[in-house]
């Protein structure tokens, strides 16, 4: 039987990828941020997941003319692409198509109309977290769950929470022994569009991470407009974290938490152990 061992929330900002690719992990302005990922590495080593369900949003790289509300990668691999500033030197990410199709079948049977994607391209929404958390050759298979956080109208936080709940039931009804970790990526506060460019809100980001751990369903009642005012227009992608939390049980332990907002984005990191599925 498949089990969810826990979840990780992490930013997916390209700035982190640029710093990593330029070998700046130990530079003074970046060291604290990259060091903050070490406890997450240790936790992942201990849990040794087979498959990661990575909840993220595409940034017009796979979906622009056609924009699905929710899409799941169901092909053999998720190809790494050039987003317009050179392809990062990483191999394509192997998918877990058998579990992905099981999830899609379960979700559709429970009224979530999922777009299936044979070639869901890996943009920074997926690749930044993958390269922050793992080293190639990739030790896990990766199922990408893309939620539209770009072209309004967007799925509500409530819908994303419910999706996470149903993803949990889908995984728990998969008969093959599979250890699963759920990732929610994006945010936290940031705004890249318009006169409010550079909006960052550490107070909200810290509160968001606390609520996500302890009272997550409170966040499902927020509206996207409220999230935009609190965290900036592009921070609507925090629904990916809400969805991730929905896939965990009520009983979680915070293993690690980090936050910094040095420039344009609130970098958040939250590692949650699912107590329902602790190794006996």
């Amino acid at each position, binding site marked *: 039987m498949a089990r969810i061992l826990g979840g990780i929330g992490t930013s997916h900002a390209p700035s982190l990828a640029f710093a990593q690719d330029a070998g700046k992990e130990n530079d003074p302005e970046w060291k604290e941020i990259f060091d903050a990922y070490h406890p997450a590495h240790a936790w992942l080593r201990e849990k040794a997941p087979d498959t990661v369900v990575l909840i993220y949003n595409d940034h017009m790289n796979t979906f*622009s003319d056609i924009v699905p509300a929710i899409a799941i990668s169901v092909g053999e691999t998720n190809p790494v692409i050039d987003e317009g500033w050179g392809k990062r030197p990483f191999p394509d990410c192997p998918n877990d198509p058998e579990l992905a199709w099981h999830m899609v079948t379960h979700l559709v049977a429970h009224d979530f109309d999922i777009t299936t994607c044979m070639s869901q391209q890996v943009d920074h929404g997926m690749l930044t977290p993958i390269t922050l958390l793992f080293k190639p050759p990739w030790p896990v298979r990766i199922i990408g769950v893309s939620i539209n956080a770009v072209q*309004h109208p967007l799925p509500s936080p409530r819908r994303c929470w419910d999706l996470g709940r149903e993803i949990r039931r889908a995984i728990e009804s998969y008969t093959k022994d599979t250890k699963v970790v759920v990732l929610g990526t994006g945010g936290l506060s940031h705004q*890249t569009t318009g006169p409010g460019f550079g909006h960052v809100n550490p107070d909200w980001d810290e509160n968001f991470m606390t609520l996500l751990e302890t009272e997550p369903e409170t966040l499902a009642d927020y509206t996207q407009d409220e999230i935009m005012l609190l965290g900036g227009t592009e921070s609507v992608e925090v629904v990916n974290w809400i969805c991730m939390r929905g896939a965990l049980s009520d009983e979680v332990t915070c293993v690690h938490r980090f936050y910094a907002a040095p420039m344009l984005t609130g970098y958040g990191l939250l590692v949650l152990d699912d107590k329902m599925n602790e190794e006996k």
Partner: protein
Amino acid sequence: MPTETHSPHASVARRQAYRPLRLPDSIIVYDGARALRGRRLNQFALSIRDEEHRRRFVADETAYMKAEGLTPHEIDMVHRRDWLEIVKYGGNMYALIKVARALGISQARVGAQMRGEDFNAFMASRPVGSTGIASRDDLDQWRE
């Protein structure tokens, strides 16, 4: 199993307990009208993900944008690097940032310009400190 707390009606009631918001001008929503009007600009911006296309665009911006079917007004906005006008029109920053980077313009410079702020003044505003706005209960100034 997770406890079953799902109740759409209760959720709607909790949302409606708050007065509606009026979004300020600092927030530009990329909605259907903008996606429709900005389609040519965004598809052009996305096309330069291809390295050869980037090279051709940078070598001759006008020729490339004409070939992509942009209108004279759209080409003019790109020439003037008027990012604020472009996003109001319907350009999406996720697509446009590819154009800016191809032209050697950083995201922070694009942003400072949209704010109407001097670049160095903007950089001096980082890191941002406490706002005192930590939850939906703190949004009264934007409610009707």
